[in-house]
């Protein structure tokens, strides 16, 4: 018995040493097995190190008062001052934060599915020529900047001269001043946003749809499934990996509610529903608040973004799908 315990006392230690060495060697063996993968991966990692991790020290500007004479490292430390300016000096940070989130959520709920639905519809068209032409036309608005589109949209939605209100009048309705009415502004943002991006958004889903095995459809048809059953049971599950990754990554940008669009379309009559974080920072920037504030705002947005991404990723994986990680 005693000899047993002595042995036992000694053995674990030796086992540990052996397994530690064993572990490192095991890892090295794994790496060697995947040697070709690493030959491909490592150069790209170096690129990330140089161009993304290298400049990372700039994040400290969020906590500093940047002075060009001192450079980033030696600039004075101001702690949470920029965040104070953002959260507490704006008398209504809740308002701009709320607007940002609400507009982003609208965009997510309505804007995210739109290209998917359009892609599915386009996929069902049997006339090849029409389908090709329709695809090419649909993404045109994507290429216009909001500076240009806002001009067009303003005239289109004009209560006096615009076609939309003209059509409304044919139905006997009163003209609506979409861009100056707090009740209509956000929906207008979402709809014009969809109009601009829906076509471009279909491209990735059409690409995914191209990879679906047609024989699956054959089998389903023979089993008597109608079109909608087919879409629900075959098409959507097949492109779900693409959908989920697009969703997760776009969720990461939730605090970017579309500065370009809003800045070019909004006006004081709708500030209460349209003023977002970025428009506030833009106004503050005009008055000279500098790289420190913009870095701080960026940091705030990014932390929220990555938290959302990781959370959604976790949920998605629990549901059995491929996520980001």
């Amino acid at each position, binding site marked *: 018995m005693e000899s047993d315990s002595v042995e036992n006392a000694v053995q674990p230690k030796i086992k540990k040493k052996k397994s530690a060495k064993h572990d490192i060697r095991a890892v090295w063996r794994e790496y060697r097995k995947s040697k070709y993968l690493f030959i491909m991966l490592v150069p790209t990692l170096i690129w990330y190190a140089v161009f993304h991790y290298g400049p990372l020290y700039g994040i400290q500007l969020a906590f500093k008062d940047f002075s060009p004479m001192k450079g980033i490292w030696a600039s004075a430390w101001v702690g949470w001052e920029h965040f104070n300016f953002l959260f507490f000096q704006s008398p209504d940070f809740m308002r701009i934060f709320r607007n940002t989130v609400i507009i982003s959520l609208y965009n997510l709920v309505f804007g995210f599915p739109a290209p998917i639905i359009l892609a599915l519809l386009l996929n069902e068209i049997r006339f090849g020529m029409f389908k090709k032409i329709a695809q090419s036309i649909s993404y045109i608005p994507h290429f216009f900047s909001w500076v240009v589109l806002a001009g067009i949209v303003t005239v289109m939605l004009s209560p*006096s001269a615009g076609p939309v209100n003209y059509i409304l009048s044919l139905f006997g309705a009163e003209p609506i001043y979409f861009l100056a009415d707090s009740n209509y502004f956000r929906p207008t943002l979402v709809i014009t946003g969809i109009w601009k991006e829906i076509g471009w958004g279909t491209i990735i889903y059409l690409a995914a749809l191209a990879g679906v095995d047609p024989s699956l459809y054959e089998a389903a048809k023979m089993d008597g499934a109608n079109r909608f059953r087919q879409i629900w049971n075959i098409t959507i599950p097949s492109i779900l990996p693409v959908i989920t990754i697009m969703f997760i990554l776009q969720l990461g940008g939730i605090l970017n509610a579309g500065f370009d669009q809003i800045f070019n379309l909004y006006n004081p009559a709708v500030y*209460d529903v349209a003023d977002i974080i970025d428009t506030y920072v833009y106004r503050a920037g005009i008055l000279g608040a500098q790289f420190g504030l913009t870095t701080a705002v960026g940091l705030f947005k990014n932390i929220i973004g990555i938290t959302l991404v990781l959370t959604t990723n976790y949920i998605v994986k629990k549901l059995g799908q491929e996520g980001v990680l």
Partner: protein
Amino acid sequence: MKKGLKASLALSLVASMVIAGCSTNNGGNTPAATEKPSTSNNQATTAPANEEPIEISMIGSTWDVPTEDNTYVQQYLEEKFNVKFINYRANDENFKVKIAGGEIPDIFPHNIGEADMVNWARQGVIASISVDEIKQYMPNYVADVESVDPNAWDIGIVDGKNYGIPRVWLNGSTGFIPTYNGEWLEKVGMSAPTTLEEFEQMLNKFRNDDPDGNGQKDTYGMTGRGKDARAQLFNTIYAAYGVNPYHFKVADDGSIIWGGITEEAKEATKLLNKWYNDGLIDPEFMTDDNTLIGQKFNTKKVGFIENNMYHHLYGQLATFAENGITPVYGKGLMGPAGKSLQMSNGALQVPLLLGSHLEKDDAKRIRILQILDELATNDEIYATTVFGEEGVTYEIDNGVPKLVEPYATDADARLGKGIGGYYNPFVERAVSTWKFHMPQDRLEFKEQLTAGAEVISDVLGPSVMDSKAKYFANLSALQDEYFTKAIIAKNEAEVETILEDFKGQWLKAGGQEVIDEANKLYQERQAAK
């Protein structure tokens, strides 16, 4: 012929100097320099030729950056002053980044914002230069500036020190010109309104009497810049009350008050509200910007615009003609203020800045000041840097240099010669060389539009204020919102409530601090006189 022309030019030059001096001079001591005859061909103070040429890192403007080195103008200046230029290349977007990265030129671009000036002063990026030194080495230019506005020195003071060479923009002291559709006025049987009552009459007729004769009620009296320049929104009406909601003004008790919380602004807004509810103002003023206003005027949807200064209008003559419109210009409306007033941005601008390393290099700094004085006031040097080479890039037409083709229309051709603000940051910014930009017809046009007009502008100009930097991002949004709500309110009582509410909110959200600081600043400036 030439003699007579020269005489009339000199006369109008003196006249404009006197007018400018009258309208902006608040009774301060006009320096004796105003009596000095317009500086003509002084001998340029060239450095002794046997000294080493000093190097100057130059970027007078971010808009006219030459693509090549050693252009005609660069060589001319290098020879004239015995200097060597290092052409610092940047544009508006990347200039600040370059500064942040530590690349600091000797001479900064002329188009800097006041907030940047303050930041850079505090960060030690720009040089502080004593006022006396500037007066000593740039005597001609200083005389010019002080003849336009002796308060020009105030703008460059940060934390008690002076940080640049003052700049004024002569056009800035002219006002926004009320412009009417001449054909419409004729059709409704009116001449250009001179009082608020007449203006209201005109609005009614423009709206209800079908001035474009197409049988439809599709015209409005006016619209406004509700989207992109709130200070210009309905500026003519506010001016008739002696106020602009976005400027500081001197109250009756001598203190400084912000236009937006004054009784005058409230009364003016009530009038606008009445007009709005009567349907006289284009309800789309909230989303109209400069482009749309121009379009609406040119396509005969509105009959009155107020978003242009004389030089904008001069440039639009061709457009008006193209669209069959004869513009009629007014001088301002008589209202409760008791006199006709136009709103102006004021002539004061952010000073020209120099890099901070020049604080230590006395010789170079002084040399630069001298060179700048020549660039601004020496006829030959100014003409060369701004127009190029006589006979090659320009000719004298009507006593004034005029660019010839291809230099007149091709910006690249001009840059190929080095012409423009890059080597001369005082383009169109000095009284003595103003004559070069005023061909007879432009001069007459300016006279016609601005002679006798009185302007109101922000009493403090583009001033450095910490509270502004802290609070304006919110205060301006707050004001925009409330004033919009007030103009479209249901009735006068509502306007009253909204604007009273605004006043309270504004003061609470930092406005009180802003006013206090503004008053302090004003007192300091008054005391220094």
